């Protein structure tokens, strides 16, 4: 047995558990502002992810216990569930989760080997394949006449045959979607923003959800589970790109604060872009990764075919990681430069 013979008390399970804990403020805020429906989605995604993980581990000849206990499948399930509309039908949740675990994670080699963030692959597949179902967001309770209870939410998710009138009463476009649609209707940003779904910075309710994700993210940073580079660069990328566009034409481009206070941005910055497996590893690389994801998010939101761009931005940056890492190898002790750039080596 080799040295060292002692270990710090850390484990993959512990890392993943802290990520789940850091998501709890977001989940709690979600329930408080949007109703308990998200709990059904989270539970269904969790069960699906664990079952898919167990099946894939068995198929690949890996021991199920240590790999199920690492909690990484649950993290993927929760991140995907929190990205989905809260009243998405069950089969949408199951399909997305299965795709995330089976294809994006295990077919690429399992824990630590996947190139793309599994949750974002699941999300991307769903939004490309089922764009209508992917917009069934429950509105914030503040704006909803008849909020759904837990059982009602469950029967919407599992039943699917809920009276359409009731469904229309509880679901609405997300603020980002509303802005996008409004702009397409040749309205100015200010005109769109007068609608009731917009709050102080982002959407009513949504901005608080974003704040809760931010809080959880800061907890992860304080625990050194994530580094500061990725979230900061990500938020800076959003702010700079949105700010630049807004500065030149405030009528056609949303304010940077509005873009920042979308829940997807905070979730992406602190929980998804920071995924170590699919992110850059060098300090400078992390800055480039975060900044790139932020810029791409605004570009996709503004000119792309979908209301939000976080998932696609992160997937595109995932693709660039090997290049970013190779180009940003830091100086080592003793000053040897990376040999790729050192002619004497």
């Amino acid at each position, binding site marked *: *047995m080799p*040295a060292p013979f*002692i270990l710090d008390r850390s484990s993959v399970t512990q890392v993943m558990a802290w990520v789940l804990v850091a998501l709890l403020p977001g989940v709690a805020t979600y329930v408080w502002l949007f109703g308990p429906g998200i709990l059904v989605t989270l539970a269904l995604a969790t069960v699906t992810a664990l079952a898919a993980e167990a099946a894939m581990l068995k198929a690949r000849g890996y021991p199920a216990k240590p790999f199920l206990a*690492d909690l990484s499948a649950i993290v993927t399930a929760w991140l995907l569930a929190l990205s989905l509309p809260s009243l998405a039908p069950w089969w949408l949740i199951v399909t997305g989760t299965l795709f995330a675990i089976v294809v994006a994670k295990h077919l690429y080699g399992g824990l630590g*080997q996947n190139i793309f963030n599994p949750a974002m692959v699941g999300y991307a597949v769903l939004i490309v394949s089922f764009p209508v179902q992917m917009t069934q967001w429950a509105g914030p309770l503040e704006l909803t006449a008849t909020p759904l209870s837990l059982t009602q939410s469950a029967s919407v998710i599992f039943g699917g045959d809920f009276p359409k009138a009731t469904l229309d009463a509880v679901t609405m476009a997300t603020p980002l979607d509303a802005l996008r649609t409004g702009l397409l209707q040749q309205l100015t940003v200010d005109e769109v923003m007068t609608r009731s779904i917009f709050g102080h910075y982002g959407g009513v309710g949504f901005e608080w959800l974003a704040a809760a994700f931010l809080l959880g993210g800061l907890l992860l940073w304080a625990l050194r589970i994530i580094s500061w580079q990725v979230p900061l660069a990500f938020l800076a990328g959003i702010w700079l790109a949105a700010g630049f566009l807004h500065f030149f034409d405030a009528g056609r481009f949303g304010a940077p604060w509005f873009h920042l206070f979308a829940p997807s941005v905070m979730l992406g910055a602190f929980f998804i872009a920071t995924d170590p497996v699919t*992110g850059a590893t060098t300090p400078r690389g992390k800055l480039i990764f975060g900044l790139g994801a932020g810029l791409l998010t605004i570009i996709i939101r503004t000119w792309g075919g979908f209301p939000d761009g976080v998932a696609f931005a992160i997937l595109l940056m995932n693709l660039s990681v090997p290049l970013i890492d190779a180009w940003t190898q830091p*100086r*080592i*002790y003793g000053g040897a430069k990376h040999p790729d750039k050192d002619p004497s080596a």
Partner: protein
Amino acid sequence: MSRTLFTFKGGVHPPEHKTESNTQPIHSAPLPRHLVIPLSQHIGNPAKPVVNVGDLVRKGQMIAAADGYISAAVHASSSGTVTAIDMQAVPHISGLHDLCITLETDGRDEWIERTPLDYLAMAPTELRMQLRDMGLAGLGGAVFPSAVKLDPGAAHLCPTLIINGGECEPWITCDDLLMRHHAADILQGVAVMRHLLGSTEILVGIEDNKPEAIAAMQAAAARMDFAVEIVPVPAHYPGGGAKQMIQVLTGKEVPSGKLSTDIGIQVFNVGTAHALARAVHHGEPLISRLVTVTGHVQRPQNFEVLIGTPMRTLITLAGERDGTTGVLMGGPMMGVPMPSLDVPVVKATNCVLVKSAELFPPLPRAMPCIRCTRCADACPAELQPQELFRFAKAGDFGRAQEYHLFDCIECGCCSYVCPSHIPLVDYYRYAKSEIWAREKEKRASDLARERHEFRQFRIEREKKEKAEKLAAKAQAKRTELSAAPAENAATSEADAKKALIAAAMARAQARKAEAAPKNTDNVSPETQREIEEIEARRAKIRELARKPLEPKEKN
């Protein structure tokens, strides 16, 4: 005392476990019946035995001489009889046996005549050779021959001399105790180092978890006739590594692939300074050292131990306990597991750490790397351990080397912090040894290829020469034939060919006949007789070999 300190990147804070052993005074381990003294206790060439089995030796007598410049002599740690010079188990990571001299002690512990060295009057080269012959090697763990390190070279000056009292590894306290109790001796050794290296700045770095040692060293430093600065440094593993100590004290980095002397700094362990003082002022070669015996024993403490004492003796002295799961030489971060308890204490043995399942639980199952880069944050060499791991695991040793594998100091910080519990250092050692093996193989194959290419060239050349000769001959024949009157002009071409073939066959036959005779034919009568004599001797030997061996003498 307000020196500006610097920090090194990375590092970890494992539990220190120093108080188990540093609260006890130093005891001398008793003289064992047998001492097993390995000939390769230092880096460089193994020492060459200068005694034979059966010889009586005295304590401090050289029993194996240094072989070459990078080598150190080995001495009898006590008086007695040489009973064996053979391969024995030694405390080495390879677990292989190595050549050792075994002494049966006579209990009298009789010294050789010890003559102090008047080092100020000696020529530096002479003094260094003397120190090499007294077996001095670095006692911090690397056991590099001290005489070599004390040579500043023609061009190199060593303005800064750093004495390393860091002792950052958990559990180990031998340097702590040495500084507490032998501070003055250590500084006497430092005076000799300073003299040989021409150093003007002398810094003693001690981690601040050793306040007694710092106080003792400061008191001793105040009594010296040259300036020595005792510098408490933050306790932070691996702050006792030479490169890290240099960085903390001076803010300088040793350039990759270079030595600290290239930036005018030399580093010695406090134990080495102490051994040097014993050698110079008391004429005692390096035959003993302080060893911490700690971990899963009843009375953890430090012993003054003769080189060659079996580790088992020390563990028994400290009180063996049930539930021992193994023994390490060194600390838990960089220590080496011992193949058995019969291995001897050597110059590199700073600690005998006895393991138990409670103190050192078995390492958990390794999970896949999740690229969290905690290892990179912890790496004092500022490498990207996760990339090195990936390359080593994939067998991509070239890339591993490009990512500075050989700048890794194997401190173990990366493995310590890894949430996936991957034995990273093991992968790096594996990659390094693979690269070394391949380089060796490559050198051998380069040589073989050169030889092969030359042979091919020679064969080609000979073939060409032969072909040219044949062509010339054929041409001659052809002209000869065509010169003859061409009666059957139509068949002359075929005839010519036939004639050529016949001639070739005749030549081949002649060559065969030529080749057949042995080289024993056509020799002079003297040579013939010699050959016959040799043949007769060989026959006799063959005859002897066929007979069963008879014991030469009966006991």
